């Protein structure tokens, strides 16, 4: 910042108050571009609210809790998709969170130097795989494997827990959970890694010097230090899981209801939109689908603003510029 002020100071000193037309034009066009970005966000919000209007006025707030999607009787509600979204993304986060912490700790604390760079690159490659490819793998490889081997085993062993009911097609909530876990793992782990790298080494050395083991240092120094950032990383992972449409549509099966059995078909907000938006039978159904998109949009706005504010405050505290998604 100081350099900017300094340079504009220099200009003023040299040119007095004279302003170049070129300066004005560049500033104007660049400013217009920045404005355009804001306008796009505004347009997105407006278009989605506008599209959802019919459903909003017809179903109101009750839409959120209604578990139904019945084009024949014109009854629509987001209940089952909110349930499906919450179930899939929370379990995925539960699986991916600890795994990601493990990876981040490994990469910052344990890995020999020569392993760090390649493994970091590998984990980041996982993030680069397009969701449709993960979905392709999910529907053709993962789903049959889970259906034939993993799900029957879980059902036999933990069948007394209602979550592990009777396996059916492999196109189910459980497969969607695994797919989502894979997709959010690299996001959470790479942010956590950067956070852990930002922990001042004096703090870590001080703790180790006091005779703690490495794990005690991690628990006592690194986790508390990076707490806010880790929360942000998890929230961003959650946001990603909630918004993922394609890979989930490919594997989740599609079912309206609130099944407790993970091995039955379900739907999330995003997957319902992806599978039905093109073929919606009536204007009301289209509007109801955009209403689902509105819920997604509001959620993603909240999640991102919240997480970014945390990330920014963490970055400011640590003097880091590298912490981001």
């Amino acid at each position, binding site marked *: 910042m100081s350099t900017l002020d300094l340079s504009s100071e220099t200009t003023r000193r040299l040119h007095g108050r004279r302003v170049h037309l070129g300066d004005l034009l560049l500033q104007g066009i660049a400013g217009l571009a920045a404005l355009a970005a804001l306008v796009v966000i505004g347009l997105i919000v407006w278009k989605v609210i506008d599209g959802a209007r019919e459903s909003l006025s017809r179903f109101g707030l009750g839409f959120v809790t209604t578990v139904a999607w019945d084009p024949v009787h014109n009854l629509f509600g987001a209940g089952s998709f909110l349930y499906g979204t919450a179930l899939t993304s929370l379990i995925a986060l539960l699986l991916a969170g600890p795994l990601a912490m493990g990876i981040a700790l490994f990469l910052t604390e344990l890995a020999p130097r020569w392993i760090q760079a390649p493994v970091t690159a590998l984990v980041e490659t996982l993030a680069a795989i397009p969701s449709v490819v993960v979905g392709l793998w999910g529907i053709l490889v993962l789903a049959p494997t889970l259906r034939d081997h993993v799900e029957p085993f879980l059902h036999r062993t933990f069948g007394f827990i209602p979550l592990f009911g009777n396996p059916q097609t492999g196109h189910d909530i459980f497969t969607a959970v695994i797919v989502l876990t894979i997709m959010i793992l690299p996001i959470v782990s790479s942010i956590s890694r950067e956070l852990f790298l930002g922990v001042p080494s004096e703090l870590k050395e001080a703790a180790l010097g006091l005779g703690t083991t490495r794990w005690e240092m991690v628990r006592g120094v690194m986790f508390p230090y990076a707490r806010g950032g880790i929360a942000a990383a998890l929230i961003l992972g959650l946001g990603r899981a909630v918004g993922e449409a394609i890979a989930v549509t490919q594997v989740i099966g599609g079912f309206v209801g609130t099944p407790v059995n993970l091995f039955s078909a379900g739907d999330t907000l995003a997957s319902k939109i992806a599978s039905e938006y093109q073929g*919606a039978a*009536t204007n009301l159904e289209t509007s109801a689908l955009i209403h689902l998109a509105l819920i997604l949009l509001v959620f993603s706005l909240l999640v991102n603003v919240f997480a970014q504010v945390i990330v920014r405050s963490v970055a400011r505290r640590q003097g880091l510029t590298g912490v981001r998604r």
Partner: protein
Amino acid sequence: MPKSGLFRTTIALAVAAALAAIVAASAGASPAKKQDTTLTGAGSSLIAPALAVWKPLYGAARGVTVNYSSVGSGAGIKAITARTVDFGASDAPMTADQAAACNGCVQVPWALTATVPVYNIPGVGDTKLKLDGPTLAKIFLGQIKTWDDSAIKKLNPGLSLPSTSITVAHRADGSGDTYVFTDYLSKVSSVWKNEVGSATSVSWPTGVGGTGNSGVAAIVSSTPGSIGYISDAYVIQNHIAKARLKNASGRYTLPSIKSIGEAASLVKTVPADMNVSITNPPKTKNKKQWDAWPLSTFTYIIMPATTARAHDLKNFVTWALTHGQPPIAKYVFAPMPLVMIKAANKALTTVHS
């Protein structure tokens, strides 16, 4: 930055905005030209095989390329309503609401085909399984849960049915097949009619959704114990076992050019909106009609009554109704009955540019 910074930015924005407006205006002045040698359509996956056959034939005969995207009947109606294509295609006639929304659309029947229940039961071969309407409805309602249920056993004496649980597969997208299938179930089961009803997309009591005929076929062919419904053309392409279905005359039939034609031969008059349902044809003693397939359907092309492409569209549909019928017989499209062709031609006269 000092106070003047804000002032400067405002002036700068104004200058740039003026510039941008000029650029945008000049860009908008040159609209996209549309090629007139192609017709673009979208919709029903039931009719997709026919259009795949027609495309090269019609291209060779008339020099017009017909591009078709199989996105499902619901999406087809939506696409023509939004005028994002030259024509839509649907197996379900438009509802009153849809017709109103479509703002002056004409629907013309242009092919006759069928949907069929398909299954994947270990040890039960193609066409071995017999079902009747009420049993099929109970399966799709989730009331019959295993293949060795007494209701199914009763219809299939001598067939050894496993105790495998039944997995229902249905369409996840809006589909004409779903309309035909649920239309039939509504006619044979009052529970179905009251609780679920018929439409291109319904609230399924049970099961797993797949996208398109392909999606359902994929689930059924990969899932032991599953049952679904797909259009006959896709059965032929993918070698999936299809079930015999008992019609109102008490005969167990299979879809074929003959049995679909029998169902269609019962049509005597055609209403102005072309809405003709030929599912579950009534009981008859006439041997020429008693094998009628209960899941037969006409399928429709939908186009705007007023369109710049009227000439090309009318030519194409007229061709499809005549020269187009024989080559699609290999995908189990039966010839259209005369009364329907007459009605179709009459409807075509209302399309103009």
